[in-house]
């Protein structure tokens, strides 16, 4: 037997971001895998300690590239917890609208990117084109396509543009037609079935051992462990939605749950637009004076949000000054992206490694920070 060492990444069409796995293979079976993160380590936690509370807002969306809004939200929510601020009613609804639009956007992207590791690029092209139309809406909302910096401590930056909700509803109607087409293309395709069905299992014991959250946890345990239900933030307790679950977690099930979550997000968006008040303030100042000179009361708080990959959180420490004392970031895919790869990638075939990374939701920028 000859053991050969192979590198997956840091550049690979089947992976999101620069991430490397050293694989020791025998034939085409992985015998041992070692995650090698750090290609996207930019030292965010140190940088945040050297910037003002408001100045950080330009920095944090970059921690998670595909889904930046959750960063703005956990950061703002943490500061509001520390400063004991009551966010205006309308701002809560707008935040939910943004978060759910972002969830649809990132699920479309990750659903389409299954085309990378399986070689079915049609899925990628279709889904990314659709995602771009949602990005157009974000551009209209705040001027930026990817990094919005729209949710700020105390509320949101500005009220919605005139007629914005109508265009969001039109987009929902369009998605209602388009998503079944993607399901037809991706979830029923023989290539995807051959590669993803009964392959890349995630048993419930492994979920509890590693601490996996999000779709991985819900697809294996069958429990509705979603922070939006278990510990509701914003106004999630005032809307109706279901949390899709399963008890048999192969790669296809996890792809399936993404689609079902998209439908639930669309259901939430419709209710948000229905229940949102037409008038009212959308932000309040966190502390008096110039936004760059804001101070946040002393304290330590953990703020969490349900991202598309699981629980995403910031642990924020303030010493009462104009800059944060320490901020620790909990990337949602940290458990499966490091310990998961080391312990459970072995035994799979080389060509399944990137499907493993994709359907487990490994996102390297949030692991490296």
């Amino acid at each position, binding site marked *: 037997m000859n053991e050969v060492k192979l590198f997956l990444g840091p550049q690979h069409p089947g992976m999101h971001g620069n991430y490397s796995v050293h694989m020791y293979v025998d034939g085409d079976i992985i015998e041992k895998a070692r995650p090698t993160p750090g290609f996207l380590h930019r030292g965010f936690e140190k940088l945040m300690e050297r910037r003002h509370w408001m100045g950080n807002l330009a920095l944090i969306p970059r921690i998670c590239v595909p889904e930046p809004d959750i960063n703005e939200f956990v950061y703002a929510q943490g500061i509001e917890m520390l400063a004991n601020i009551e966010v205006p009613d309308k701002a809560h609804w707008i935040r939910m609208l943004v978060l759910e639009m972002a969830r649809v956007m990132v699920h479309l992207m990750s659903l389409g990117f299954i085309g990378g590791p399986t070689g079915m690029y049609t899925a990628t092209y279709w889904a990314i084109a659709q995602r771009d139309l949602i990005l157009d809406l974000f551009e209209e909302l705040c001027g930026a396509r990817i990094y919005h910096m729209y949710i700020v401590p105390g509320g949101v930056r500005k009220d919605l543009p005139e007629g914005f909700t109508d265009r969001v509803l039109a987009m929902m109607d369009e998605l209602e037609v388009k998503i079944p087409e993607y399901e037809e293309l991706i979830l029923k395709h023989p290539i995807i079935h051959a590669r993803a069905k009964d392959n890349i299992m995630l048993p419930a014991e492994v979920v509890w051992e590693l601490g996996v959250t999000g779709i991985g946890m819900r697809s294996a345990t069958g*429990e509705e462990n979603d922070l939006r239900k278990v510990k509701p933030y914003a106004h999630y307790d005032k809307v109706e939605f279901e949390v899709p679950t399963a008890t048999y977690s192969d790669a296809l099930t996890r792809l399936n749950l993404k689609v079902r979550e998209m439908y639930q997000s669309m259901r939430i968006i419709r209710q948000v637009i229905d229940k949102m008040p037409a008038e009212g303030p959308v932000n309040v100042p966190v502390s008096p004076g110039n936004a760059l000179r804001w101070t946040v009361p002393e304290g330590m708080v953990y703020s969490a949000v349900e991202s598309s990959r699981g629980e995403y959180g910031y642990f924020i420490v303030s010493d009462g000054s104009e800059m944060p004392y320490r901020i620790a970031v909990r990337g949602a895919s940290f458990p499966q992206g490091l310990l998961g790869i080391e312990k459970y990638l072995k035994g799979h075939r080389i060509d399944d490694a990137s499907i493993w990374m994709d359907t487990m939701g490994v996102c390297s920028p949030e692991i490296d920070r």
Partner: protein
Amino acid sequence: MSSMNNIINEIKAALAPLKMETPADKQIAAVVRPEAIHNSLSYLRQRGFTQLCIVTCIDWIKDSEFELVYILFSWTDGIHVQLRARVDRNNPVMVTATDIFPGARYYEREVTEFFGVEFTGNEDAGKPLFLEIWDDLPPLRKDFDPQAYSDSKFPMRERGNEFVSEIGGTEK
């Protein structure tokens, strides 16, 4: 689902923390002695706090102490717990939590790399993770100065006489 007050009283009775507070709605913070961390974690785990969210550290350089923070979550009660303990900054050692939460392994490795806190019993002790060929203080310590580090590692280059600006002419 038990109420917040019941859980606070239960934790108070079981852990006898030095300090206890509720920093936010549905969030409890308990400060214990560093020797008590291991027992506290195993108590909280069997109490239903089965999810380890993060292990991290704060550098309180003025008090010459590191504060280790373990954040746990209970999916049945929907409550986060911060378990905190301070260790001496000059000799930062803590017992590993990997026998209770296997997922703690890489969080501890990260804290070791960025703060220099040693976790006894962690099988990855001392291995680098994110930083490659690092030869300075652990970078998230407060006395590490990134500006000085980058100035010493990447010195400013002198611009020579041969430089021709885009506008034209040779610049001094």
